[in-house]
């Protein structure tokens, strides 16, 4: 007689029978998987927010060595040189697709806690909106050039005092009215306030631009564009594709979240794995007679080993599924914090991807196998006679 293995219902029913133990052990694992998944979702959400901010055919020019737009400064004459490069695209009306921008931080108070946070305020040129197709007004209207008017990203409008529609923010000895709210598809622009570049430069008494954003007619010509700018003796600038620029700015925060989160998940998983081990050792100890019977029926040591491993795996995976499902609900929340690199507030959501689901379930399975292996080995090593005698 050749047996293919211990029937699966035997494995599954054992978990159902010991309901309390199964619930507690799987519950512990669910918590670990929940932490693991939310951390990955968070750093994924941050990356997505900042990567979506950039368009692949846009290039950002900032002063050499300045790592962010806020630290950068570009003189008007320099901006004119950058604007006149041959790689720059034109719009239908024959205007160059260039936005000379001024980017500064203003301190606003949060609606909820009243605590201060640095909000990015971006003064854009007339083509600013044309360069960012993902930005669209959802309420109110666009600011008028030359007026003390601003529009606020949806996440800023929600969270900060004075940033809602028709409210006012005071800075630079003026009251600025919020005349419109815009959505930017969850990108970093959602955490910004936009206004007329020239007006803001006046208000901040800042005679230089922070950055120049250009749309390239042919993105493959970026290298030539950059080389010409960086070797021009009249300029001290550097240029990056916009997607790279924003990805670089999220790097430190995303890495911090990932390292801290994964370190925690690994430490926590030790606890949950120990839980699985205790449960499985007890399962083996309580079922010595059954194991003897199985062996007497003709199941091999290998079959017993696999049966107990499968039981542990099933236990862990059911915890893992609960953890992932709970983590999926986190997608309804957004988190906002200061990005250390830009010193400004950025809001981003939890983002669940199929990769994260797989990684989380894989992590749960690993805990199950590691926790169940030694007990399963003990079960497989029992000799038939001893096991049957134990009854």
């Amino acid at each position, binding site marked *: 007689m050749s047996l293919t293995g211990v029937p699966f219902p035997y494995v599954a029913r054992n978990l159902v029978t010991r309901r*309390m*133990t199964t619930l*507690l*052990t799987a*519950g*512990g694992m669910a*918590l*670990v998987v*929940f*932490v693991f998944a939310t951390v990955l979702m968070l750093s994924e959400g941050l990356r997505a927010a900042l990567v979506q901010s950039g368009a692949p055919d846009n290039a950002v020019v900032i*002063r*050499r*060595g*300045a*790592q962010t737009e*806020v*630290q950068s400064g570009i003189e008007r004459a320099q901006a004119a040189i950058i604007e006149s490069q041959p790689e720059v695209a034109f719009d239908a009306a024959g205007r160059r697709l260039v936005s000379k921008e001024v980017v*500064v*931080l*203003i*301190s606003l108070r949060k609606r909820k*806690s009243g*605590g*201060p*946070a*640095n909000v990015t305020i971006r003064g854009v040129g007339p083509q600013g909106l044309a360069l960012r197709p993902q930005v669209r007004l959802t309420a109110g209207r666009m600011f008028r050039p030359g007026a003390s008017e601003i529009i606020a990203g949806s996440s800023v409008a929600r969270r900060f005092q004075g940033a809602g529609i028709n409210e006012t923010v005071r*800075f*630079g*000895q003026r009251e600025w009215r919020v005349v419109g709210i815009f959505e930017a598809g969850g990108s970093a622009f959602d955490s910004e306030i936009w206004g007329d570049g020239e007006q803001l430069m006046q208000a*901040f*008494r800042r*005679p230089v631009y922070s950055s120049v954003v250009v749309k390239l007619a042919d993105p493959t010509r970026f290298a030539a564009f950059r080389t010409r700018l960086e070797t021009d003796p009249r300029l*001290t600038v550097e240029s990056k594709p916009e997607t790279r620029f924003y990805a670089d700015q999220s790097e*430190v925060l995303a890495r911090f*979240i990932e390292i*801290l989160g994964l370190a*925690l998940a690994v*430490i*926590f998983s*030790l*606890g*949950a794995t*120990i*839980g699985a*081990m*205790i*449960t499985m*050792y*007890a399962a083996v100890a309580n079922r010595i007679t059954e194991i003897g019977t199985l062996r007497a029926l003709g199941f091999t040591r290998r079959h017993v080993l696999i049966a107990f491993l499968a039981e542990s795996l099933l236990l862990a995976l059911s915890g893992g599924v609960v953890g992932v499902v709970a983590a999926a609900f986190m997608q309804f929340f957004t*988190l*906002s*914090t*200061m990005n250390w690199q830009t*010193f400004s*507030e950025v809001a981003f959501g939890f983002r669940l991807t199929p990769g994260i689901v797989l990684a989380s379930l894989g992590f749960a399975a690993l805990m199950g196998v590691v926790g169940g292996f030694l007990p399963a080995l003990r079960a497989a090593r029992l000799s038939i006679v001893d096991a049957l005698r134990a009854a």
Partner: protein
Amino acid sequence: MLFRLILKNVFRHRLRTALTLLGVTIAVLAFGLLQTVVGAWYAGAEATSRTRLVTRNAISLVFPLPLSYQQKIRAIPGVTQVSHSNWFGGIYGSERNFFPQFAVEAESYFRLYPEFRLSGEEMQAFLRDRQGAVVGRKLAQRFGWKMGDVVTLRGTIWPGTWRFVIRGIYRGAEATTDEGLFFFHWDYLNEVAKRQYPRRANTVGVFIVGISDAGRAAALSSAVDELFRNSLAETRTETEKAFQLSFVSMTEAILLAIQVVSYVVILIILAVMANTMAMTARERLAEYATLKALGFGPDFVRLLVYGESLAIATLGGALGIALTFPAAYAFGGQLASLFPVFRIQPATLWLQAAAAIAVGVAAAAVPAEKGARVNIVAGLRSIA
């Protein structure tokens, strides 16, 4: 009698007890480390003085203030001295080597911050050298700097390559003092700025205002801000503590997440511990029935279960607390750039102990009730 039984019970399932113990130890250790991380976040605010105010540009910290404000602030009655500093934001080698650098008005600054301890000769050497720098003890240790070493920084806010000579290494007066800072002469920065970035010359990032009476901090803060109302650069003045806490509040979401997660690990271990106790009590129902048949009351059985649970939890907790010290030391060394001050607060130790005991009690609650209520006849029958 009770204690002997508890002790014997604890060691009946050696492997199970050892595993549970290990789990509790890891959880209490992780909890302690996370609480210490949270504490380290507040280190800047802890180390502040009540007699120092910070004045910055009202728009935000990235806007400077004119140097000329210094004399006006100094003239306010109740202000004892004023110093100023600029955030430099240079890069030493690579961005990974981050540490804070400040251009300060040396004499007044170190008078306002007596907790940065510098010997007389070092101070003199620093004051004499225009390109001199003073660094914290831990920072010097981190990069192996010695007196007289040349340190080159690449400016981001102030472009260019900047050369400094280390003229002093300061020590913190308290354990909470940040020994990871880098100071150099504001005059040197301004001199270069005048030549290369004339628009930004004679500007400062923040004024540090020393006051005689901490009780008047609020009044003096508004006096300073009133002075510059409706000027080109309006100011916001707050106590040094409030200033530091505003940085904490900018990252409060991360802080909150760490707090929540630190309690999640306690929940995880509670599940493990509760499982251990539930299994243990289930296996011993017959014994509890026997004890009751012998005349012991249900309270005796309860104590037996609670005692065993608490014994494992407190032992694991004690181990976890003991391990927190070497772990925090190793952890703090690795994260010196992120958390210059990384030390375990006494409150953390109490929290760890409380968490261990809470786990012990909560894990025993259900099994103890089950054991205490066991029906003698049914319990004895389960032997068969």
